[in-house]
C-alpha cells in the first residue's frame, strides 16, 4: 500500500501577514509546488487562530517550511514565541522535516549567517531533520518593484518549489542563485557609499517620509537628553 503524502506546511511568520513581502516569496514557491502536484497548506501565524490551529494540527503533518523576515539579526520575537509554544507542547519532533526561508532588507545573504546557524541548531535540538534554509536579501520594496526586477527571483523560487515538490529537498544551486549577492564586492560597496552620499540609496525612505509630511523631521532624536 502506498503511504499517503501529507501536505507540506508553509508557515508565514511575518508580523505583516497578508501584506508581507514574505507572502510574495511563499506564493512563488507554492506555484512550483502546485506544478509538481504537491499539496500544501499555509498558516499565517501572526493570527492567533492560525497559531492555535497549527499547534493543534502539528502532529498531522511532517514537512514544514518556516518563512519569515529577519528582525534584529534573528527570527521575529513573534516567531520565537510560537516555537516556544511548540516546544512546550511537543517535547520531541522526530520524523519531522524543517525547511526555512529567511528574507531581509539588507542585500547580502551573509548577514543571515548567524540566524542560519541557529536554525540548524534549533532543528537538531527539537529532534527534527534540517532540510536547509533559503536566504534572500534586498526584499524590502519588492511589492513596488516592477515585474522585470523581480521576475528572476520569482522564477527561481517557483523552480525551487517544483523541485521541493518532486524531490522533497531544496536544490542547492537554486538556493545559491537566490542568495546572491552573498557578500557585496568592493566596487559595489564603493558605488553604494557614493549613492548613499548623494541620497540615491535613500530614495525609498525619502519618498515615504515626504508622503507622511515628516521629511524634515527625519533625523529626530526624541530620546536625547
Amino acid at each position, binding site marked *: 500500500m502506498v503511504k499517503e503524502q501529507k501536505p507540506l506546511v508553509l508557515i508565514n511568520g511575518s*508580523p505583516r501577514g497578508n501584506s508581507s513581502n514574505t507572502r510574495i516569496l511563499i506564493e512563488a514557491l507554492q506555484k512550483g509546488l502546485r506544478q509538481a502536484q504537491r499539496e500544501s497548506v499555509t498558516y499565517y501565524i501572526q493570527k492567533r487562530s492560525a497559531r492555535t490551529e497549527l499547534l493543534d494540527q502539528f502532529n498531522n503533518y511532517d514537512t514544514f517550511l518556516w518563512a519569515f523576515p529577519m528582525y534584529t539579526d534573528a527570527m521575529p520575537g513573534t516567531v520565537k514565541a510560537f516555537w516556544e509554544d511548540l516546544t512546550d507542547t511537543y517535547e520531541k519532533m522526530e520524523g519531522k522535516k524543517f525547511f526555512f526561508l529567511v528574507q531581509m532588507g539588507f*542585500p547580502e545573504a551573509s548577514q543571515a549567517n548567524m540566524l542560519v546557524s541557529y536554525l540548524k541548531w534549533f532543528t537538531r535540538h527539537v529532534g527534527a531533520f534540517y532540510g536547509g534554509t533559503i536566504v534572500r536579501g534586498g526584499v524590502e520594496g519588492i511589492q513596488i518593484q516592477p515585474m522585470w526586477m523581480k521576475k528572476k527571483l520569482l522564477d527561481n523560487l517557483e523552480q525551487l518549489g517544483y523541485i521541493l515538490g518532486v524531490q522533497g529537498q531544496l536544490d542547492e544551486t537554486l538556493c545559491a542563485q537566490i542568495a546572491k549577492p552573498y557578500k557585496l564586492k568592493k566596487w559595489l560597496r564603493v558605488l553604494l557609499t557614493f549613492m548613499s552620499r548623494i541620497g540615491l540609496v535613500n530614495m525609498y525612505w525619502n519618498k515615504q517620509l515626504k508622503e507622511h509630511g515628516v521629511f524634515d523631521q527625519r533625523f529626530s532624536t526624541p530620546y536625547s537628553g
Partner: protein
Amino acid sequence: MQICCLYMDASKRSSHYHDRLYQVKEALQSLNANISWYNAEQLQFTPCTGCFGCWVKTPGRCVFHDDLEPVLGNIIAADILLVVAPVYDGFFPAIIKKCFDRMIPLLHPYLEIVNKEVHHRKRYQHYPELALIIDLDDFDEEVRTLMNHWAERIVINMRSRLRTLLSFSEVLEQDGISQLLENPKTIQYG
C-alpha cells in the same frame, strides 16, 4: 555608570532560575552603578509589526505608545544595556527578542556601508554597550557561541560593542561580575 537592565524574573523551564536571579541581582547591586530595572514580562507592549512607522511616519518613535517607550529612552541614556534572562531553545526567550525588535526606532532607515556590509545609519551619537548575563548552564558551548555571535551582530547596528557575555555560574561562582565594569575597549567601525 548608568545601566539599563532588561531582565526576566522567572523561567518557565527552570525552577532554580528565580533564586539564582536574586543572587545575580544582589551581585549587580554591589556594583558602583546606577541601575534601572525593567522586568520584561511586566511590560505591556505590542510586538513590532514591521510597519516602519517609526522610520517614515513618526521618525524615531514607535507608533505604539506603550511601556517600551520609557525603556527606549533609558537605553539611549545608559552606558550599558544589560540583559539578564534564561535561555529557551538555545536563544533568548521570545519576550526579550520582542523587546529587541522594538528597538528599531533607535536606528535610522538610511543605509551605509559598515565593516564591508550594509547597515542602518545611527540615529543617535551615543549608544550603550551590550552585556548579557544568561542562565546558560544547561546548554553547551555551541549555544554560547551562537548567542555571542548574535550579540556581536546587534552591536554593529549601534556601532557599539559587546562588553561581556556571562553565564549565571560565572557571575555567582567566578566573580565574573567585575567584567561588567571593566574599561571599555574602543572598536573602530569602518
